[in-house]
């Protein structure tokens, strides 16, 4: 189980962020009920947060020997870990989330599907529009009509 894979750009930073977050959660877990009793609601959260902290520390310790990334600069991070297509897709997902309730599901999801397909296949808007329309109709029929899931609908409709 010896790790020989070279570290990826940002790997150590990610572990450190997780570690900081775990420490924060450990404090929060302690605040639930402290060491009040062995059956208090805070016992398991504290154990879980402690395990998180310890295992991350162990991971950091093990990885210390792993070869560092060949190119550790921010440019490499953006190239290998968060390439532009990922960031753009994430931006579209965030837009979908934010427009879901104000614009209603059909518009938000339709817009997202169209834009995302357009982005990922680099052009061909007609095909993107057709695929988006067909998929949207199928999803709407299955969820809203057949299974009565109340999808977000704009109030102004």
């Amino acid at each position: 189980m010896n790790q020989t894979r070279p570290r990826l750009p940002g790997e150590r930073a990610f572990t450190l962020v997780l570690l900081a977050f775990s420490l924060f959660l450990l404090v929060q877990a302690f605040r639930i009920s402290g060491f009040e009793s062995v059956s208090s609601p805070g016992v398991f959260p504290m154990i879980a947060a402690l395990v998180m902290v310890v295992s991350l520390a162990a991971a950091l310790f093990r990885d210390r020997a792993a070869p560092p990334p060949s190119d550790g600069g921010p440019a490499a991070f953006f190239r290998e870990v968060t390439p532009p297509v990922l960031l753009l897709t994430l931006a579209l997902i965030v837009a979908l989330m934010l427009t879901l309730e104000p614009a209603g599901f059909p518009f938000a999801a339709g817009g997202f599907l169209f834009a995302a397909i357009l982005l990922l296949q680099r052009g061909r808007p007609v095909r993107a529009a057709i695929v988006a329309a067909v998929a949207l109709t199928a999803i709407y029929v299955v969820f809203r009509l057949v299974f009565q899931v109340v999808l977000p609908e704009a109030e102004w409709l």
Partner: protein
Amino acid sequence: MEGSAASYFLMSWLDPSLLALTAAGALAGVYIGAIPGLSVTMAVSILISFTFSWEVNEALALMGGVFCGGVYGGSRTAILLNIPGAPSAIATALDGYPLAQRGEAGRAIGVSTVTSVIGGLMGVAALAIAAPAISDFALKFAPRDYLLLAIIGILLVGSLSGESLAKGVFAGALGVLIGMVGLDPMTAEGRFTFGQVSLLGGIPYVAAMIGFFGVAEALVQLRNLNVAPIKQKVDRIVPGWSVIRKYIPLSIRSSAIGVVIGALPGTGGDIAALMAYDNAKRTVKNPSRPFGQGAYEGLVAPESANNAAIGGAYIPMLTLGLPGDAVTAVIIGALFIHGLKPGPMLMIETPHLFWFTVGNLTLANLFTLVFGLTGIRVFAKMMECPRAILIPLIIVLSVVGTYAIQNSVIDVYWMLAFGVLGYFMKLYGYQVGPVILGVILGPLMDVSYRRAMLSVRDDPAMFAWELVANPLTLVLTLSIVLLLASQTPAWGAATARVRRWRRNGG
């Protein structure tokens, strides 16, 4: 009496409308199960209002069909898209998705269909033969036994960790913590709620499941946009008899796990599938491929177990009126609405119900086999859809599916946040499987541990004594000790020595 049992058994086979309802239920169930966010529990709840004015047998036939089809259907999307359609299919994704990536999606679906039905029929057989004995056995499980069961399950983290055990353990603990969010069910104390009303109810684990599996995988796939989709082999979909025969022993073993876990009130098909996967991983010596990389054994075990858990869940429901899982809880509600009185007297007051259910579930399994084996080609071909289209579709489906759990946009935010976190975790060598394991088992461990502790009035010495004082508990405790011991290097050396000694001495 024997004659009447047979006639009740055949009721849904001979009455054309019951037959058709069972078939319709199984067909609908396969698709409900396959779509993440649509759950069997939800579908059966909707059917309560819908079948209100029907005869009770008709309502039950439809619900039985949906139940069987639905538990099976979860495997579809787990194999094809790495999004388990239902929590009970999480373990299926672990080996199913790697199979699809090797171009064997069709065969994987075929094998999981057949073994699902074998498991389903084993569950029904257990219900028919041993219902009273199994339900009495299930009642014996005290809170401490649930705790030990959950610990056995969580030990699976060890084998799901991938490149680094430390990272796997972290992922498992993270899952446990996600499962703790919300008002503590025992004291109504807020845990990690940060004063937000939306967090009082916790984070639905289906949202975590869809995020960590579906969206994270979709984001990872963005990196391979220009790689041509995998060509799927669709020539041999229905597995031959020789293949099935090979998996039958494992299927039966997993079914036994499924029946017991399903019959325990408080655990259902999701936990059954994970435990069966764990068991298979420990006991199958020469899997078709290493587990986690597309082992058919990794499909057979969870799919047999989660379908066997259906029959298991009906056991306490029919004998005692106690639900074995979430779906049977809803069916019990439906029985009340239809004027029946689920409880220990149910089998005496409505004698037809037991054998009717057995017959109906048998039929529903056969329909699941039929519907499961048709249309696989179309599904498998879905994998060949260009990623530029598939990825946006997966994301929209994940959003709708998460929203459908309880019509909450906040759950969607969580799901997407987990998706992004899962992306980084996958990239940096953290497996996401243990997270879901933790989310499912964490709350069970938490409440069982505290109930057990409260039962001995917070006395740790007494608690430790109870772990060995009762035969059932002792067996579970010893299993954990053995499982832990078997993971230490000393164990490997010891077993090797025993094997050598046997070979030489025998």
